[in-house]
């Protein structure tokens, strides 16, 4: 306890000594400072002697100053002491070395995330008509050294200035080394046409295969078929601007004077590809579309790759000279007709015995249906086909050259509904060459044969088969036609027959002997047909190219009108138009002539029927006289 006190007192004494020493040092310093301050104060006081308040102030200032001056040293000393005192403990504290351990602190991170910009954008793309020009430049490309040249070349149009610019461009292009916007003379304005030329890219060429594919596609075929018809009609149309309705040019219609006008060629139908060198084997007018004429053709001996059988449909309404429809098959078509109750179907009987069915709705030229080539159907050429019956109950009747008659349903040509052998006495088959059903009768018909005989036959009933034979011709029968003009008097029993014996004979089915024989022709008569409108009118053609018009109420010995088509051709077939104003005539070279019949002849007068009755009676009388003559001739001496 005492030691500690003693030590503490020693330390205090030391501290006091140190303090005194420092004080003395500082006093000495501060005295100097104080003397300096006194002297300065006095000097300042002597200077400002004038101002009393200043003196007083100075005195106060001075008075406290000297007080202050001794005080300030004290203060200063005190301060310094204090500082020292402060310093001492700090220095004391500083004397002990502090352990400093340094290390890396954790990283402070601050992050503010960017705002998510929800943007909605809707884009539309226009259809690029022309592909974008490959050489189109973006705005940044102009600064590129390498592209300078191309840019300049693009500027140039097809103008002559282009060449000058080329020169400029080259020099400028090479000169540029730094990437700066290229400044140059403005190119002369090019018109939009020139620009279009530049920018228009060539239409991509289709390869041959692609072209063929398109051409073969069904859609294209349909379109082409449809539109080519329309264009053909439009192109062929001519309008007669000289039509004079007052009739001054033509003068008075006199029967005698207008003899030559009774039969006038309207037009002809001929197709170089399909009908050349082919004999026309049948003609038929459409019932639903009176302007359509169906013609069937035999084979073309000159050509080899073409199909043997052709059927064409012509249109007289339009002036175009190509067929409306072309059908063909592999065997020569011997007979053809429109399916009466089906406006789209065309039937053909061929040389091979096959009956073919064409449909103009499908884009096919070959038959859509065929009968089988078997013994159940026909095996000989089918020379006669007709559609008989009514809309709801109709059949196709076909007679072939071996005397077989088949009846078919148009829906099913795979087998006949009914078949019959036409045999006349002693099972002798009839070599039928032509046939004609009686008007309005689906059962009874007339058949002409190669044996110069004409038969009447029936399909059903007790007398099915051949009934009567009419023997008068001396050559094979080429055509039969039954009377079918409707009127108050029915002339349906009467029929005409034409044959190779240069004659046309008028018969009644009730009479064994013919009524009248027309012998004006000097060669084979190939076809004969009654007029559909005039009961006393019929027409015939022969193979010398002659078309005759017989008006029985006027003249029975010679034809009322006659015209030679062409001396070199043989007319094979003839067909009256339903109106009775036109006759279609086909020859053996593939040409069809359409004749206009003068109206005064074609149209029956009101008394035509009664006159015809009288004519027929006269004929009958003559016929009986003839008979008597012949029998008398046969038996006794002639009456003279």
């Amino acid at each position, binding site marked *: 306890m005492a030691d500690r006190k003693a030590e503490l007192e020693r330390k205090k004494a030391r501290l006091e000594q140190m303090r005194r020493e420092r004080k003395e040092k500082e006093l000495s310093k501060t005295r100097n400072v104080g003397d300096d301050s006194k002297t300065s104060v006095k000097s300042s006081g002597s200077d400002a002697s004038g101002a009393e308040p200043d003196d007083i102030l100075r005195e106060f200032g001075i008075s406290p100053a000297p007080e202050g001056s001794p005080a300030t040293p004290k203060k200063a000393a005190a301060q310094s002491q204090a500082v020292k005192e402060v310093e001492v403990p700090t220095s004391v504290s500083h004397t002990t070395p502090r352990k400093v351990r340094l290390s*890396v602190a954790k990283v402070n991170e*601050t992050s503010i995330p960017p705002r998510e910009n929800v943007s909605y954008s809707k884009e539309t793309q226009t259809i690029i008509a022309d592909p974008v020009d490959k050489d189109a430049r973006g705005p940044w490309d102009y600064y590129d050294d390498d592209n300078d040249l191309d840019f300049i070349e693009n500027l140039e149009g097809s103008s002559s200035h282009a060449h000058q610019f080329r020169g400029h461009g080259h020099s400028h292009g090479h000169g540029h080394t730094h990437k700066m916007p290229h400044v140059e003379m403005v190119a002369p304005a090019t018109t939009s046409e020139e620009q279009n030329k530049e920018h228009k890219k060539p239409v991509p060429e289709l390869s041959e295969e692609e072209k063929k594919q398109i051409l073969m596609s069904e859609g294209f075929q349909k379109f082409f078929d449809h539109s080519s018809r329309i264009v053909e009609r439009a192109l062929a149309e001519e309008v007669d601007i000289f039509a004079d309705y007052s009739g001054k040019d033509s003068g008075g219609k006199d029967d005698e004077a207008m003899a030559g006008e009774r039969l006038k060629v309207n037009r002809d139908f001929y197709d170089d590809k399909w009908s050349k060198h082919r004999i026309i084997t049948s003609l038929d007018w459409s019932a639903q579309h009176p302007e359509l004429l169906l013609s069937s053709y035999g084979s073309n001996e000159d050509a080899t790759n073409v199909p043997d059988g052709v059927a064409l449909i012509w249109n007289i309404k339009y002036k175009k000279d190509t067929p409306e429809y072309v059908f063909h098959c592999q065997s020569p078509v011997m007979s053809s007709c429109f399916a009466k109750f089906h406006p789209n179907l065309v039937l053909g009987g061929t040389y091979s015995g096959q009956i073919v069915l064409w449909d103009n709705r499908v884009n096919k030229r070959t038959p859509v249906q065929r009968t089988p080539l078997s013994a159940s159907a026909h095996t000989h050429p089918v020379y006669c086909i007709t559609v008989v019956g009514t809309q709801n109950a109709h059949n196709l009747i076909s007679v072939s050259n071996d005397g077989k008659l088949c009846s078919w349903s148009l829906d099913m040509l795979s087998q006949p509904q009914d078949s019959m052998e036409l045999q006349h006495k002693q099972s002798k088959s009839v070599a039928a060459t032509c046939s004609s059903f009686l008007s309005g009768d689906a059962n009874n018909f007339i058949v002409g044969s190669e044996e110069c005989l004409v038969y009447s036959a029936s399909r059903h009933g007790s007398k099915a088969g051949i009934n009567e034979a009419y023997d008068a011709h001396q050559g094979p029968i080429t055509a039969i036609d039954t009377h079918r003009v409707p009127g108050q008097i029915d002339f349906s029993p009467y029929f005409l027959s034409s044959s190779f014996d240069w004659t046309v004979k008028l018969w009644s089915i009730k009479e064994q002997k013919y009524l009248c024989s027309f012998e004006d022709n000097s060669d084979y008569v190939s076809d004969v047909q009654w007029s559909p409108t005039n009961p006393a009118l019929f027409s015939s053609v022969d193979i010398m190219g002659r078309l005759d018009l017989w008006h029985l109420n006027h003249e029975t010995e010679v034809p009322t009108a006659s015209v030679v088509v062409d001396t070199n051709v043989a007319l094979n077939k003839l067909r009256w138009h339903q109106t009775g104003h036109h006759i279609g005539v086909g020859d053996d070279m593939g040409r069809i002539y359409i004749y206009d019949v003068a109206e005064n002849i074609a149209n029956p007068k009101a008394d035509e029927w009664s006159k015809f009755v009288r004519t027929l009676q006269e004929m009958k009388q003559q016929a009986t006289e003839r008979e008597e003559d012949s029998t008398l001739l046969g038996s006794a001496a002639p009456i003279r």
Partner: protein
Amino acid sequence: MDDFQSGEETAFVVDEVTNIIKEAVEGSIGGNAYQHNKVNQWTSSVVEQCLNQLTKLSKPFKYIVTCVIMQKNGAGLHTASSCYWDNQTDGSCTVRWENKTMYCIVSVFGLAI
């Protein structure tokens, strides 16, 4: 014992400093919207206030105060800092403050003397 005592006296107290910073920022830019011509004043005042308050603590510390004011424009901002010091005695504190139009980030680093 000595260390703990010294820690109390001479250690960087984060919570205390955080409060100081918050008050300084609130005081300077409290309810204001971003204005480009005033932002200079705001950053200066924030820093000065922070520093004054910190020095009033009379702690034996060296202080470094930084203030960043960023307008809210949708941009992102990322900062990071790291220090090499005496982890026992030194420390830092970052305060992120925001209102509708701007962000304010104040960092205080205190290094014991």
